[in-house]
């Protein structure tokens, strides 16, 4: 049975160099095979790589930026406000994508397109405005140097309406900081893999969208009935209220208790001042409101205000767990107000808080250990918890001043400049690690090592499960759960929905098979959808291997092998290299890749059309 609805079948391609916009038809085979979101991203990036003979500099005009919601984005089902940004990542040089919540993707779909791709380089700093199918490129040099939030305000003023959704980059994006992010709806970020730098390299400061088309849905009443069931299930879940109140901040207490919280650049995995930075503190002293993505009942976003002290008046949407952990405990900061201020600073500059937290943490430890000299730091000392020095360093990264100019090029460049930093900085393939300590569970290590975009938990997050019930797991079970996650989690990114209802509230993944059926009119079992998701994983692996990645790169940061956490439940634990290599071999075998991690030769044909 073929696809009957769910898509506009339109692909908008914009070339910023000559200012042209072209609306292409999407063939049925394309939408059936790649579904949407990250699937479209991977396929279009693959095609453009083939066109350029696999030689694309991430910051060149040729790098294709893909903005893709999915077929389920914006329709009535739990947390349907997601949207993927994909390109060749400046951080890793490989395929990179990052997804964003909020309402930008919904509005983009309502303009009547399924996917937007952008290439070229505008002669001047510009705004791309898609107004219900009509595309204009407006030069807006006045946006130079403006923060993400300021830029959003200026764009809305220029367009004379508040009813647009705007994705912007900050100063960091303009300066092509390799972990710059894209910010939309004031504080929703596509944070990872440096998509903001790709926009900056194209002289594209902002994308504004406004649309009012009906989203195509095959069977509305079927969808509503199924979604009502799903919403009801979520509402009855014992943790639902807690999620509404604390959002992802509840993970701080959990991570601290189980010993996976990064503290002092992953030297430790518990934090003594946990009580001052956890969700309860946020609720009692800082939180002033909730924020949710489109059509989401969980509203995991928090809005916080600092009411007294030196950061008085700081408003921020967030923080969530990663931001709080990476900018707080990981840098030795135990003052929640300072974390909020640092987070706001990152939002304004438009840099990824996870990468920033890792890099600043590594710099502090590097200085402590004598790897970095005072002159490397431009004469400004920095220690754990030194808020002023940390803020200054973050600012320097965004503006590429002094040492910030090197740090802004990401961990690869840092290691090239100071080879000893390799032992201190936690990164895989050039992407800095998320805030879950993999030394507590080897499956999480395998997940980081084999994630297609680098050390991020978006592809597989197995640590909680392994700690809870995986003490006696066999190798096979560990590999299986990583592969299963790497099928399911990217599927959510392809469908254009959030995975939190599934991973956190246990909303069954079988619902999504029905959602897909009601929206597209095509019957596909969950297994078939997972198979498609798996194909996209093969495709991103193919991209990586064609760009030179092999087994040697599927590794873990030095600390994971050599430096155990000092205290806490996982004190003394490291990942054994032999254990890891054994798991990796098994992982390749199960995926059908060879011993070196290369997918089989004939697989390219699969992605021809």
């Amino acid at each position, binding site marked *: 049975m073929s696809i009957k609805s769910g898509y506009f079948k339109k692909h908008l391609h914009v070339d910023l160099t000559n200012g042209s916009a072209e609306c292409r038809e999407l063939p049925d085979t394309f939408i059936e095979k790649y579904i949407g979101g990250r699937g479209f991203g991977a396929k279009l990036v693959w095609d453009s790589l083939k066109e350029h003979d696999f030689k694309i500099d991430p910051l060149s005009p040729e790098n294709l930026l893909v903005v893709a919601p999915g077929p389920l984005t914006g329709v009535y089902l739990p947390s349907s406000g997601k949207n993927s940004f994909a390109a060749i990542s400046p951080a890793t040089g490989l395929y990179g994508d990052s997804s964003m919540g909020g309402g930008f993707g919904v509005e983009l779909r309502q303009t009547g397109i399924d996917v937007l791709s952008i290439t070229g380089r505008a002669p001047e700093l510009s705004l791309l405005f898609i107004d219900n199918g009509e595309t204009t490129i407006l030069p807006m040099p006045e946006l130079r140097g403006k923060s993400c939030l300021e830029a959003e305000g200026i764009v809305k003023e220029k367009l004379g309406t508040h009813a647009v959704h705007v994705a912007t980059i900050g100063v960091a994006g303009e300066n092509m900081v390799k972990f710059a992010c894209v910010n939309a709806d004031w504080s929703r970020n596509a944070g990872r893999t440096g998509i903001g730098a790709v926009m900056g390299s194209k002289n594209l400061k902002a994308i504004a969208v406004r649309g009012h088309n009906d989203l195509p849905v095959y069977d509305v009443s079927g969808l509503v009935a199924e979604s009502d069931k799903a919403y009801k299930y979520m509402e009855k879940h014992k943790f639902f209220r807690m999620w509404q109140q604390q959002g992802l901040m509840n993970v701080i207490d959990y991570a601290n208790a189980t010993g996976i919280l990064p503290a002092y650049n992953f030297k430790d995995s518990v934090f003594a001042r946990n009580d001052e930075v956890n969700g309860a503190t946020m609720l009692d002293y800082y939180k*002033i409101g*909730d924020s949710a993505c489109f059509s989401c009942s969980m509203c995991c976003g928090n809005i916080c205000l600092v009411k007294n002290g030196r950061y008085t008046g700081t408003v921020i949407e967030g923080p969530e767990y990663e931001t709080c952990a990476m900018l707080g405990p990981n840098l030795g900061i135990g003052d929640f107000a300072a974390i909020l201020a640092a987070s706001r600073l990152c939002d304004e500059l438009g840099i990824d808080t996870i990468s920033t937290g890792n890099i600043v943490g590594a710099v502090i430890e590097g200085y402590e250990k004598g790897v970095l000299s005072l002159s490397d730091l431009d004469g400004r000392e920095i220690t754990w918890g030194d808020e002023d020095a940390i803020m200054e360093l973050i600012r320097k990264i965004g503006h590429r001043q002094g040492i910030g100019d090197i740090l802004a090029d990401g961990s690869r460049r840092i290691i090239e400049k100071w080879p000893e930093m390799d032992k201190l900085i936690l990164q895989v393939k050039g992407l800095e690690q998320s805030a879950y300590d993999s030394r507590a569970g080897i499956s999480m290590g395998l997940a980081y090592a084999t994630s297609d975009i680098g050390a991020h938990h978006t592809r597989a997050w197995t640590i909680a499960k392994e700690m809870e019930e995986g003490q006696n797991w066999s190798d096979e079970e560990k590999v299986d759960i990583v592969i299963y996650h790497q099928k399911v989690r990217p599927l959510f990114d392809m469908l254009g929905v959030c995975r939190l209802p599934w991973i956190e509230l246990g909303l069954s993944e079988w619902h999504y098979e029905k959602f897909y059926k009601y929206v597209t009119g095509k019957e596909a079992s969950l297994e078939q959808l997972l198979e498609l998701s798996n194909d996209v994983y093969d495709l991103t692996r193919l991209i990586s291997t064609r760009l030179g990645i092999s087994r040697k790169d599927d590794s873990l940061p030095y600390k994971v092998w050599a430096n155990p956490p000092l205290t806490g439940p996982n004190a003394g634990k490291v990942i054994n290299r032999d254990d890891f290599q054994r798991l990796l071999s098994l992982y390749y075998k199960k995926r059908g890749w060879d011993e070196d991690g290369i997918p089989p030769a004939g697989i390219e044909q699969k992605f021809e059309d």
Partner: protein
Amino acid sequence: MKRLTVIPEQCSGCKMCELVCAIKHFGVNNAKKAAIRVMITYPHPVVRMPIVCSQCKVPMCAQVCPVDALRRVDGVMQLDKENCTSCYQCVEACPFGAIYVHEDCDLPIICDMCGGDPECVKKCPKGALRLIPEAALGESRRLNNVLSYTQMKQIEFYEKGERKIIHYAETGKEEL
């Protein structure tokens, strides 16, 4: 007589109210076709406020209607679809901007209270939209206003010898 009221402090801005309204009245997944819209301002001030018809007792929309197409039926403003000329004067006249226009629809979009059982109230996951007796209007604002002047965040009490704490932030969540 019950009124549809908004508690902006509870609103998360998820826009489910818009979506369910559009699905109920037009059968489409298009939040722009709803008779309710969530306005969001950030960061100064931070407000999430659903805008929906207040069922004013002195309806400005009806006063400006040149063909008398807006009338109160059983306490709810109803649009006479036959006679409406789509001049949209009501849209401009509403002090709250609670009447909407969509280019696919000829008629202005105005809340009809779903015949007394509003879909948005049923589906709001945060209890930010409520159907309450007229006399109870303003209750939540009064409470919030008073709380904003106090330093107390919680009350302590003993139940069967066990110490318990209720945060004021949680008291709004019970059914009214």
